[in-house]
Structure formats: C-alpha cells, structure tokens
C-alpha cells in the first residue's frame, strides 16, 4: 500500500518520538530494576532478600507488562505472559514473603524477565537510539550546510563519513542528512518493531515450557474423557436396572390386565395399581438420574440459582452470595456446579460444621467460588480425598483449586475457572 508522503513523514516522526520516550524507560527502568533484582537475589543469603525479592519482582513484571502493552499497541507484536499464578493460600507476614520468594525463583518466567532486562538495556536501547537518531541526525546535516561548517574550518568535523570543513562539504553533509532522513522514513517503524521482537525473543516462553503445557493438556484431556466415559457407563447402568426395567414390568402388567379385565376385574384393578406405582417409581428414578447429569435448575436459571437451590437441599444451613452479571458457557457452568456440589458434600460428610458460606463472583475473566465452613478443619487436597475429584473437574477448564484448612477450622475451599460471561 502506498502511503501519501505527508502521512509517512508524520508516522516516522511519531515513531521517532515514541522511540525517544521509550529509550528513557528502557535505560532508566531496566538498569535500575536489573541492579535491584541482582542485589535482592544476592541478599537472599543475608535474609533481607527474602523480603524484598517479591516486591522487586512485582515491579519487574509491571515493567515487562508495560512493554508488552506498548508492543501490542505500537507495533502489533504480541508478547505472551506466562507467569505462574500464586496460590491463594499464601500466608501473611514474613513466612508468606519467604514462600513467595521461593515460588518466584522456581518460576522460569522470573529468569526470563531478568535476561530480558539485560538485553533491553543494551541491544534494545541501541535499537531505540537508532530509531530516533534517524529522525534527528539529518537536522545536523542541514544546520552544517546552513553555516555551522564555518566553525570547523580549522579542524575537520566528520558528519558520518563526510569531512566537513567548507561550504561544499557542508552541502554534502546536508545531502547525506536528507538521504538518512529518507532512509529513516522507511526504517523507523521496522526498527521499533525489531526492538519489540527482540523483547519477545527474551520474554516469550521456551519450547520446553510449551511442551509442559501440552503434557498438562493431554493429561487433563485424558481425565476428561475417562470421566465422561465412566459417567456414561453409570447412566447406562442406572437406566438399564432402573427406569427401563420398571417400564418392562409395567408393560407386562398392562398385558395381563388386558387379559384379565373381563374375567377378573378385581384382580385387574389390583394390577393397575401396581402398574401405576411402577410408573411413579420409574419417574422418581429418572428424576434423580437427570439431576446427576444436568440439574434442571441449572438449565433453567444458571449457576447462581442452581447453587442456591442446591444449598436449600443441604442439611446444614448455608448462605449463598452470588455476583454474576451473566451466564458462563454451559460446560463451565456444569463443571462449576458439580465442583460446588462435591465441596458441599465434603463439608456435610467430614467437616462437622453447622454453617456453610458459598461466595461466587466473576472478575478479571475469572469465575471465583469459595466454599467456607466453620467445621473442624484439617482437610487436604491430594489423592484420595474428595477434593482431588474437584481438582480433576476444574482441570479440564484450566481451573484451579486451593484449600486452606488449619486444624480446628475454618476450612475454605477456593476455586477459580477462567471464563467469560455472556
């Protein structure tokens, strides 16, 4: 696409201006943060670093995030951010800081950030300087031609490769400046882009991490498929032994009634009553089955009211607070519902509680649900517990589960599922 000359000049000037501003953030921000990071990590040996590292790293991440935003808006370069989330139940105070520091140092993203800071204040900075220099340097050539050359009559001044010492060489410098300016018009945007691409090369996750992600996806997919298959088997068995068998019995009864109705009306009437009872039982079984597959309230009202209805069925008094502005996708709603249902069942079975609080809200692209009880505590996530079932359910949707349950209670189970509401 051919741009009109005027708008090309304007874009180039804008790019130069951006590079100029960014170069300050680059040199001041990255150098300061790099020095602070190195000091903070070194001081871990002295203990002070344990407290300061999380703060410094948070600043580094903000600095990197700002660059990610600029890369996306200015040059359309998308730099993915793969920071491991902090678990919800990190303790407060000094121990919490130590825990955070450990988690941060284990996160490869932290080391990537540091590598990037180093690259940013060197190669990244040079690229930015080039970008805006191509806009400013040509001015010097013009000024030399306009008369500044007189200052250098005695000692030669090199404008790039032009030795300026007379009007003629001054004009040559001006000509070179114009050539450089024209080059700048074309090169400034690619140069700025190159700066961001460089940042991406340092900040983007490695192949190995992506491979880990794929492993995780494969694992959760297998689990999802397994769960779905065993659910189907259960449904098949329930139908086969339950409603289906009852309908067979009912049909048989009706056949007998047909034969008996004239010969022995009294017996026929008795059988009719049995047939009606069978159909009622079949209905009850089907109703329970349906509730286990997809609760009707969930279909009719969505997650909030479904959980409210569920809590009303609990033998323990429960308070449900819902702040959802819309509905999540059906599979997410279903997973969240059954996760809450399992969490509530756990409380009833194990916690010895007499009160439950359920809180659901959606913020920053996350559905957050917490189930808290005033029971005896001591619950642990992990294999074998009911909580691992919840973890599996949520895993399919990249959701996570955190449990805080000190001995003596209270227990708080927090679930997070990334999703959008509509």
């Amino acid at each position, binding site marked *: 696409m051919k741009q009109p000359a005027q708008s090309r000049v304007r874009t180039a000037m804008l790019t130069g201006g951006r590079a100029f501003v960014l170069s300050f953030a680059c040199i001041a921000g990255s150098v300061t943060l790099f020095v602070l990071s190195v000091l903070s990590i070194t001081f871990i040996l002295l203990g002070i670093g344990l407290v300061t590292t999380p703060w410094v790293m948070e600043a580094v991440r903000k600095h990197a995030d700002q660059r990610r935003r600029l890369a996306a808006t200015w040059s359309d370069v998308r730099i993915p951010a793969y920071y491991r989330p902090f678990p919800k139940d990190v303790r407060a105070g000094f121990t919490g800081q130590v825990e955070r520091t450990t988690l941060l140092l284990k996160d490869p993203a932290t080391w990537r950030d540091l590598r990037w800071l180093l690259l940013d204040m060197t190669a990244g900075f040079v690229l930015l300087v080039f970008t805006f220099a191509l806009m400013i340097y040509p001015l010097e050539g013009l000024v030399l031609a306009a008369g500044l050359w007189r200052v250098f009559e005695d000692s030669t001044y090199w404008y790039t490769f032009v030795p300026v010492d007379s009007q003629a060489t001054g004009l040559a410098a001006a000509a070179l400046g114009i050539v450089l300016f024209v080059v700048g018009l074309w090169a400034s945007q690619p140069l700025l882009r190159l700066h961001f691409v460089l940042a991406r090369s340092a900040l983007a996750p490695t192949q190995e991490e992506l491979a880990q992600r794929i492993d995780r996806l494969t694992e959760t997919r297998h689990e999802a498929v397994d769960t779905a298959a065993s659910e189907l088997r259960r449904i098949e068995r329930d139908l086969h032994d339950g409603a289906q068998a009852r309908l067979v019995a009912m049909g048989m009864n009706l056949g007998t009634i047909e034969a008996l109705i004239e010969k022995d009306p009294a017996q026929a009437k008795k059988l009719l009553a049995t047939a009606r009872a069978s159909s009622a039982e079949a209905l009850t079984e089907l109703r329970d089955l349906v509730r286990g597959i997809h609760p009707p*309230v969930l279909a*009719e009202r969505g997650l909030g009211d479904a959980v409210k209805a569920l809590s009303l069925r609990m033998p323990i008094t429960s308070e449900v607070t819902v702040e959802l502005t819309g509905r999540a996708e059906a599979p997410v709603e279903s997973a969240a519902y059954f996760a809450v249902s399992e969490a509530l069942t756990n409380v009833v079975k194990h916690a010895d509680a007499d009160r439950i609080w359920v809180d659901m809200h959606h913020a920053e692209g996350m559905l957050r649900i917490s189930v808290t009880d005033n029971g005896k505590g001591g619950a642990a996530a992990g294999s074998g517990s009911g909580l691992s079932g919840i973890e599996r359910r949520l895993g399919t949707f990249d959701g996570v589960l955190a449990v805080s349950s000190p001995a003596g209670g209270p227990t708080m189970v927090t679930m997070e599922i990334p999703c959008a509401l509509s």
Partner: protein
Amino acid sequence: MRVVLAEDLFLLRDGLVRMLEAYDFEIAAAVETGPELTKALAELEPDVAVVDVRLPPSHTDEGLQCALAARRDRPGLPVLVLSQHVEQLYARELLADGNGGIGYLLKDRVFDADQFIDAVRRVAAGGTAMDPQVIQQLLSRRSADAPMGGLTPREREVMELMAQGRSNVAIASQMVVTERAVAKHTSNIFSKLGLPVSDDDNRRVLAVLAYLDRG
C-alpha cells in the same frame, strides 16, 4: 370453572385437557409457549391456570416467570405450577407475595386424578397446594438443627398434610380420625410453634410454610 393450561408436550397437554374436562372444567385455552400463556392469562381471565415450569421458546423457567408476572398484574390470580422436579427455591418465589392461590406440584401427581383435581379446585378457591416433596425438603433441613418445637409424631404428620394445603376435613379422612381430633392437633401445633392462630385456612397454611422456610 375456566382453566388456562400451558404445557408444551402434546401428549401431556391432551391428557390434562381430557382429565380436566372429565371433571367438568371448561378449558378456556390450552397453549404451548410462554408468550401465548401471557396473552391467554391477560385476555381470558381464567379462574385458575395450570402451568408447566419449562416452556418454549427459551425452554428455561419461562412458565414460572409468566405466572409470576401475571400474578403481579393480577394479585392472587390462582396458578398451579407443574414441574418434572420441585425446588424449594421456586416454591419460595411462588409463595413470596403471600396472596395464596398457589399450587406447586410434581407432574407425577396427575397420576392420582382425584387428588390432582382436588388440588386444582383448592388453588382456584385461593388455597395452597404444595407438593409433599417440597415439604419433605423443608423438614429434612430443619430436623438437623431444630427438633420442630417438640411436636409429637402424630402432630408432625398433621402439620405435613396441613403444609401441603389440605383442609381439616381432608386431613381427617386421610388419617382416618375425626375432624375434631385434627382441629385439636392443629391448635397444638400452632401453640408449640408459636404461630398466630387464624381462622382463615389459607393464612394458616402460609404461616406454617413460612415457619418451615425460615430454616
């Protein structure tokens, strides 16, 4: 008595029409969808509406919403809600306006025609017909923490039937006791639960339901 019926499944709608007609009800309209129901309730002024919770086009709780909206426009409009499942949550919403003339039953209850028709008549007369399962849900929650104010098993049985909306006469015949005995039980129940005594049958039922729902 004129009935507006809303049910989307043809077989069930047809069956209900036949049953109601057999008991001398006049079918003012038998509709399939929520919007049709809203229109019929507004224009035909029926004595009672029999409504399925789930209706097209949304296949959510459209029937329930239409019924609640119609009752906001015409307080006390008798509505009997039918569903494949009963939820205390919905029962609460239906009873919230305290106007009576509310029924909420499982669809299975149509198997017993006499009982079902009795429920329709009761609702049409401004009474209540709550599904036994709703009452069970309410009771199962309570029994864990509050022993129901020391009711005797007999009184508890009476209370369950009363909460369903049955009259003393009906309770007496079901339990095979005299009406006087039932009256005595009910007055005991009210004093034990600390509820205000009322002559009005329906006020009485609503008071018991509200007491249970306080959970």
